[in-house]
């Protein structure tokens, strides 16, 4: 008897193949580049990432399912892949000089970053719990190493250990959720799960409810939603700052995309149950994030708590489970990538010989020593708070209006109150920059490397541009979630 293996559609995984080849190629090229010129590896990685991003755009409206229904390419996957590739490109730009200052300018850094991107790209395209798990682990294992990349730095290695221990612990819990789902439903394919739940009327099955909790916990870790946010401040503070910028955006986006796929497509019929769960989690996440952020004096830690709070806002989009909400999540990740990476870029700008520059006090007098950086920082802070005319405002507007449409009035009230709290701590930085005394002139003035300046300028312009002309990106975001319309 002969078994015919189905031939997978390799064209569908073009971007993934490209990233894999690029990352492996970088590891090889790295061998031939002398120690003091590792920057070349970074520039090569940047060029590759940009090419991949342009190549991925061709997959818009491509829509294919391959590998026996395990891998799906739709607009939703494409738009999130663009978020990852954008975040990777900006991270490489802001890393080039920083790694040299920290004396860890090694080629592996860029290869690891691309392997991480690969994991995330697989994760958003996954239509099967097995593939989601593989993508998640590819991403997570690279990120653990990246967060401990300054291996002679006590804080960095401690951050890596904390991230690793929490990460593998929660991935065990996620796996048990997958095992239970498989045991009840008999399949790990998301569409098959939805089908079986419908046919057998399993939507109130207690074992599936437990599995739902476990899956939420598994994705909740990367999203940094309460009560799985404890790792975030320590890891964000200890990791190299470009890595912090990266993990505050990209893995979070990947976990959100996977959460949307699993919850909306896979167990969409259990929506009444998971809406209660996410309601409580969203309220907790926003409040804990914002209130604790207000107490911080370290800006990296403050932005860590603020990123927890932003995860809370984005949960509103999933909770609302309508087109505006899901499109809002996609849009918000673009906006969040712009504004958050920009804010971290300014922190990197403050890093110079002998000065770490991640305390609020280090921002004092920045308006005098580097007015342009201070101005852009204000734009990022406005956007993070959600004040027009910035992309952050449009994102929040979409999310909140979706939640109102779905009838979550109280949650929107909590979210708006939280935004007010966030204004307080974001503008402590602005106050330090404009009203604080500049340090004496003996300290070198903060001057960014050209690559860093370019990166901050790009994200600054994009933050403003999509705040004033959001129409096109909103339409793209709405077109990206059409896959989910049958499930809403």
């Amino acid at each position, binding site marked *: 008897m002969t078994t015919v293996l189905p031939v997978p559609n390799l064209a569908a995984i073009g971007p993934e193949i490209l990233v894999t080849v690029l990352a492996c190629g970088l590891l090889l090229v790295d061998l031939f580049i002398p120690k003091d010129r590792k920057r070349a590896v970074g520039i090569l990685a940047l060029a590759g990432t940009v090419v991949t991003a342009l190549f991925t755009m061709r997959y818009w409206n491509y829509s294919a399912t391959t590998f026996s229904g395990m891998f799906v390419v739709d607009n939703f996957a494409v738009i999130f892949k663009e978020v990852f590739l954008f975040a990777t490109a900006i991270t490489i730009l802001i890393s080039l000089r920083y790694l040299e200052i920290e004396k860890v300018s090694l080629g592996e850094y860029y290869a690891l970053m691309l392997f991480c991107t690969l994991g995330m790209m697989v994760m958003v395209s996954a239509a099967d719990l097995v593939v989601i798990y593989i993508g998640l682990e590819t991403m997570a294992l690279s990120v*653990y190493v990246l967060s401990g990349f300054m291996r002679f730095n006590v804080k960095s290695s*401690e951050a890596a250990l904390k991230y*690793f*221990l929490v990460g593998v612990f929660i991935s065990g819990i996620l796996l048990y959720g997958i*095992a239970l789902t498989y045991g009840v439903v008999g399949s*790990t394919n998301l569409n098959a799960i939805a089908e079986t739940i419908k046919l057998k009327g399993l939507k109130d099955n207690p074992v599936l409810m437990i599995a739902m909790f476990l899956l939420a916990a598994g994705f909740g870790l990367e999203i940094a939603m309460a009560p799985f946010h404890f790792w975030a401040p320590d890891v964000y503070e200890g990791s190299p700052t470009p890595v912090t910028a990266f993990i505050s955006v990209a893995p979070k986006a990947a976990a959100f995309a996977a959460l949307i796929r699993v919850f909306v497509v896979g167990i969409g019929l259990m929506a009444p149950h998971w809406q209660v769960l996410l309601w409580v989690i969203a309220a907790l996440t926003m409040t804990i994030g914002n209130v604790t952020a207000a107490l911080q004096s370290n800006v990296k830690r403050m932005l860590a708590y603020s990123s927890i709070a932003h995860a809370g806002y984005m949960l509103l989009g999933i909770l609302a489970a309508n087109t505006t909400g899901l499109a809002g999540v996609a849009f918000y990740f673009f906006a969040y990538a712009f504004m958050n990476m920009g804010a971290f870029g300014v922190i990197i700008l403050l890093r110079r010989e002998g000065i770490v520059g991640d305390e609020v006090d280090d921002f004092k007098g920045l308006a005098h020593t580097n007015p342009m950086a201070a101005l852009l920082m204000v734009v990022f802070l406005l956007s993070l708070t959600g004040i027009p005319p910035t992309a952050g405002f449009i994102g929040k507007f979409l999310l909140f209006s979706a939640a109102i449409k779905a009838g979550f009035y109280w949650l929107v009230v909590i979210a708006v109150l939280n935004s007010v709290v966030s204004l307080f701590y974001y503008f402590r930085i602005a106050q330090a920059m404009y009203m604080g005394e500049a340090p004496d002139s003996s300290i070198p003035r903060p001057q960014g490397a050209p690559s860093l300046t370019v990166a901050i300028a790009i994200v600054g312009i994009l933050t403003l541009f999509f705040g004033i002309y959001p129409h096109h990106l909103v339409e793209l975001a709405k077109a990206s979630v059409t896959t989910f319309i049958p499930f809403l």
Partner: protein
Amino acid sequence: MIPVNHVIVLSLVIFAIGIIGALSRRNVFIVLMSIELMLNAVNLALVGFSSQLANLTGQILALFVITVAAGEAAVGLAIVVAVYRNRHSVNVDNMNIMKW
């Protein structure tokens, strides 16, 4: 044939031992071993379900879990070595430079 309930109960017990170990022990290596215990409990459950459902997906997933666990162990031990070189301790209670 062993009924699937017995397999699942055993797997739950091992999983619980793993969770308790990971949360209560202070030595990084014992925490890591507890986490391995959790992953193996998952494998047991997957294989049990797989034989009950007469469906191979569970066994394949178990193979993937074993592979990923090996990768996790490699990365984890490398991180522990890096931490040990910096502070000469593998006790998780000492990992408290950054707090609150």
